């Protein structure tokens, strides 16, 4: 059940190039948000831009968090791509922002008890929504594939290192790690995942990347969930503006905000 509430900006700093970290003190949402869920942020007081913008929550700290100064805080990592995110860059510490959240279904963790390994594949900003998984889940092995166009677009590597030493990086221009797409990189490492056991695979990124993942994983062996992006009108299921085509027999167009953003990978009808 989402709430509409005010948060207070605690920081808004450039990490590198077009990437920013936004900290918001918002205990009511921080307390309840689950991995893979998102918030809708009103980035301006006026009608420009008009609609809210959807953002995954990168880190959140509930009221009961041991570190007092972190309690009730949530963090968004965003890339400046257009009008709304440009306005966001001018948010200042102490300013109030209007949020709706938590929204969406979030990821389903591997069933417990499980020693099965998990694989994360994130393209560009997609890696942001996968990070809360590693903090929340108690899994066996963890393999993280992170991709971007160039070195600057590779995000969150240091945070993932705390949880896994199996981190694989790809850039399309070869400026960091493997040269190629993150899916090419995954394919090149796929022999690691031989053997009998199942793997739990979580992917988030541009549609082309998710489609490529769907093309290379055997669903019986890789239990796969994908978090999708779509332009959103409301974010809470009211407008049917955010649909994606699925294999659902009766209602092929499902709402990304309400029925997703996480879908079993095999349910998406790629076009």
């Amino acid at each position, binding site marked *: *059940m*989402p*709430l*509409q509430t005010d948060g207070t900006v605690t920081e808004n700093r450039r990490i590198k190039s077009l990437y920013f970290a936004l900290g918001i003190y918002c205990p009511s949402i921080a307390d309840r948000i689950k991995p893979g869920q998102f918030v809708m942020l*009103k980035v301006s007081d006026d*009608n*420009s*831009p*008009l*609609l*809210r913008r959807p953002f995954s929550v990168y880190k959140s700290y509930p009221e009961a968090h041991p570190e007092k100064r972190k309690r009730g805080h949530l963090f968004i990592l965003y890339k400046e791509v257009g009008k709304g995110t440009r306005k966001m860059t001018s948010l200042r510490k102490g300013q109030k922002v*209007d949020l*709706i959240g938590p929204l969406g279904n979030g990821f389903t963790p591997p069933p417990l008890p499980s020693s099965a390994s998990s694989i994360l594949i994130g393209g560009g900003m997609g890696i942001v929504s996968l990070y809360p998984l590693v903090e929340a889940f108690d899994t066996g092995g963890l393999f993280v594939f992170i991709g971007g166009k160039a070195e600057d677009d590779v995000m969150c590597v240091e945070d993932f290192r705390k949880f896994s030493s199996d981190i694989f990086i790809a850039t399309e221009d070869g400026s960091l790690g493997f040269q190629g797409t993150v899916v090419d990189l995954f394919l090149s490492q796929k022999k690691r995942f031989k053997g009998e056991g199942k793997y739990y695979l979580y992917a988030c990124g541009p549609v082309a990347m998710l489609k490529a993942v769907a093309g290379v994983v055997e669903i019986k062996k890789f239990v796969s969930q994908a978090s999708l992006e*779509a*332009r*959103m*009108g*409301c974010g*809470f*299921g*009211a*407008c*049917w*503006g*955010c*649909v*994606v*085509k699925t294999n659902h027999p*009766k*209602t*092929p*167009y499902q709402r990304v905000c309400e029925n997703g953003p996480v879908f079993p990978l095999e349910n998406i009808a790629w076009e």
Partner: protein
Amino acid sequence: MQNFDLTVKIGKIVLQNPVIVSSGTFGFGGEFEDFFDLNHLGAIIPKGISLEPRKGNPPPRIFETEGGILNSIGLQNPGYKEFIQKKLPYYKGLKTHLIINFFGNTEREYIELARRFESLPGISGLEMNISCPNIKRCGIAFGTDPRMAYRLVRAVRKATTLTLIAKLSPNVTDIALMAKSVEEGGADAVSLVNTFRAMAVNIHTKRPELGNVIGGLSGPAIKPIAVRMVWEVSQAISLPVIGMGGIMNAEDAIEFILVGASAIQIGTANLINPRTGIEVIQGIRKYLAQNKINRIQKLVGAFG
């Protein structure tokens, strides 16, 4: 605080206040129950319903433009049968009025739907959408040709005793003429405006921004045109007029009431601030207090 009379009458329906949430922008209502108490609204109009389910248009379905949004949802809905089985029971627990928005591909479908809704409990009125701009065939000819609009409304009128509201398309040269036609056809009220046919092109991909190419424009960008149309219509007919188009707050709502709207609908604003409905009601109350007006009805058409 002093008590203000906010009630307005639309056909046989007495609304506790003139604030209605518009079809297609309020889901089936339940999506908003976490944000405020829906019982405060004048009326709820859920997503438009057709006889058969509609799967809607291919994405992208939403694109933001300056002060507005383009949508091409394509009237996706579960169809009459699933609506009455799965959605209608929800409204039983609410004391606000339920007005059903519906549309058909043919005159016969409109009549059939009107007849079926007639026999169901808990429905206060019907809003017939003769104006959807983003699906082919649907009411578009009904919505832009005054003679066809007259015929259609007359036929539906015969099929129902419920309060019948005709929702007009703004995509016409003479909106007053359309309003007169549906008045003659026997509608109890008119509502306007639906969205304006519009489109946008991505200059980098050289492709349309909407999967359906053409969509409907709504939001603050359309408000001045909508106000003008509501004014023209309210001068041309004697039925109650329900005004909408870009209402974001109480000030916008009062503007529509001043030019002749007996009630107003909130659309796009629901998506951005889901509490707009209740905030508009509070804002209208405040305006009445400040201006020492005890009845909202005194404000209707008080312009000029």
